[in-house]
């Protein structure tokens, strides 16, 4: 029951909302309330998982491998909690600023269905199905606002990501072909007996599919266009909630299903991660508008997750999980703040800036710290130096855009009317959460270590 509620609530909410006019504030608030209810249900599930261990059920009472396995472990509940929290905040933000489209709340609810579903499933094919539910809602949400820029952004986003989904589907077919199962645990067991040259091909295909979602270099080309053209709340949803598919997918498939291949390709991943960090930072430095800088910064930040994943082991995986979570919170904060005007907004943006740059007391400091720890554990001087360089560059480009937007007389933030105070308060609350996590990071650190243990232990 605890496992089913986080899935059932958004499903029924999505169907009910699809029939209602989402432009009415009451409907919007009902959507926020139902997502918040799903968040509470997920929190209950998370507490059970953290205290009693993974929760698992097979649909229809079938044996494993025949029925669909639903599984909640420390990694999946952590990502579900994060994603739901992000979606609640972003939807509340959009309701407060006035929803323009009748279907927006329903689409966010459908996206929630897809995201919680894919985090809580232990079956690769239903992972794909939930993934598509989330992606299809995302294509429509990207076009939200209806201006030509947004429509063309939605087009780019849909085309590139459909290609990514297609590549993923091929990888699933190949996995089934060589293992005869799509249950993650069974696949992980049987894949060890398959010829390595076949498996590495499948693993690379899966990696490319998630690389496209995440906007990793060299699959990043779609990301800046999309993030800089859509509305701030939509950009926050895409980078804070939807991009979690990529990080969760890379972690789950890389460390859990294909651990041998992950180890084998570790150096390639480190190289790719370093290029991603430096490329994102260099591009971000050359931009002058906040959404573009944040978009390139989010390309760069994914590189840290990749490097931590490549280092592997309990420390590396914990760092990857922690960094992914903090990165998504930072992006939500920065994107929401970039769309607002008035006092408190600059402060909220600044908290996001120091969090991305990894300056205490913001939570981002611990993300950077853990990745550094993992690199030191790996005893690689070059890697530590390159990570430091990446961090230094992020300080430069973020403080530059902060100055450019909030300090310059006649800057973007100076002109125009102030945004409604509730919107600013909501964004500032996100900033306070980032600060609070920086001042009291133990629960988050413990949760990411628990998630890493799932990956290190492998499937039960």
């Amino acid at each position: 029951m605890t496992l089913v509620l986080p899935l059932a609530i958004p499903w029924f909410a999505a169907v009910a909302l699809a029939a209602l006019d989402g432009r009415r504030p009451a409907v919007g608030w009902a959507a926020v309330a139902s997502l918040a209810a799903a968040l509470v249900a997920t929190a209950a599930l998370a507490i059970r998982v953290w205290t009693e261990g993974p929760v698992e059920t097979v649909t229809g009472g079938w044996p494993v491998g025949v029925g669909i396995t639903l599984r909640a472990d420390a990694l999946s509940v952590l990502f579900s909690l994060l994603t739901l929290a992000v979606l609640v905040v972003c939807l509340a933000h959009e309701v407060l600023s006035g929803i323009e489209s009748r279907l927006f709340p329903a689409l966010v609810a459908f996206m929630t269905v897809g995201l919680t579903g894919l985090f809580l499933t232990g079956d690769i094919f239903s992972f794909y199905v939930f993934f598509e539910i989330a992606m299809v809602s995302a294509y429509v949400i990207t076009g939200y606002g209806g201006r030509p820029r947004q429509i063309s952004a939605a087009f780019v986003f849909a085309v590139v990501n459909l290609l990514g989904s297609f590549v993923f589907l091929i990888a699933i077919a190949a996995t089934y072909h060589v293992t005869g199962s799509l249950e993650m645990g069974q696949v992980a067991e049987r894949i060890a007996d398959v010829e390595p040259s076949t498996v590495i091909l499948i693993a690379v295909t899966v990696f490319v599919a998630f690389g496209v979602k995440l906007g990793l270099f060299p699959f990043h080309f779609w990301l800046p266009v999309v993030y800089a053209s859509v509305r701030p709340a939509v950009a926050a949803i895409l980078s804070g909630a939807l991009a979690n598919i990529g990080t969760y997918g890379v972690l789950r498939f890389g460390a859990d299903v294909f651990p041998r291949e992950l180890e084998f390709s570790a150096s390639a991943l480190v190289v790719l991660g370093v290029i991603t960090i430096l490329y994102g930072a260099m591009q971000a430095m050359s931009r002058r508008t906040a959404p573009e800088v944040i978009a390139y910064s989010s390309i760069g930040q994914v590189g840290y997750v990749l490097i931590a994943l490549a280092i592997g082991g309990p420390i590396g995986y914990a760092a990857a999980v922690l960094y992914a979570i903090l990165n998504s919170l930072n992006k939500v904060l920065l994107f929401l703040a970039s769309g607002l005007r008035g006092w408190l907004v600059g402060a909220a943006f600044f908290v996001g800036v120091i969090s991305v740059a990894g300056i205490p007391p913001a939570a981002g400091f611990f993300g950077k710290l853990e990745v550094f720890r993992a690199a030191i554990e790996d005893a690689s001087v070059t890697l530590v130096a390159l990570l430091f360089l990446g961090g230094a560059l992020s300080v430069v480009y973020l403080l530059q855009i902060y100055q450019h937007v909030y300090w310059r007389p006649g800057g973007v933030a100076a002109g125009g009317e102030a945004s409604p105070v509730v919107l600013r308060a909501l964004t500032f609350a996100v900033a306070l959460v980032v600060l609070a996590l920086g001042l009291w990071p133990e629960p988050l650190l413990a949760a990411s270590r628990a998630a890493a243990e799932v990956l290190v232990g492998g499937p039960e």
Partner: protein
Amino acid sequence: MTSLLTQVVVRLLLAPTIVIAAAVLAKGYSSVGDGFSAGVIAALGVIAVYLVLGAEQADRLLPVRLAPVGAIAGLLITLVVTFSSVVRGEPLLTHAPPPGADVIHLGTLELITAVAFDVGVFLLVFGAVVGILRTVALARSEAGS
């Protein structure tokens, strides 16, 4: 392209298409077929009418305006069936009555919750395909006029 012949044939074909869809839906429990393929087959019949007669006339001929309602109703049916087993204390998607129990027969069709689930899937697929098609067709004819 649309001669009198195609216009007549497409109207005549619609009823058999729906019957075939119903047959595919019903026989899914003993041989190949299910709500999804039935929905696609039924939608193909409607698509043919759209192609030949155009959006306005098809709208007058068929109750396609209700397609989104059908899709939402279908989704709701499948969700209720999916989650009702949890309320009974069984795993998700467990169908009732259980295997071996006495069930009501309707010809060869056994009335079990799996049938309701598939009817929901049929409505969802059929409603969604027709609804999307209608939106595209109306947008095109608006752009054309």
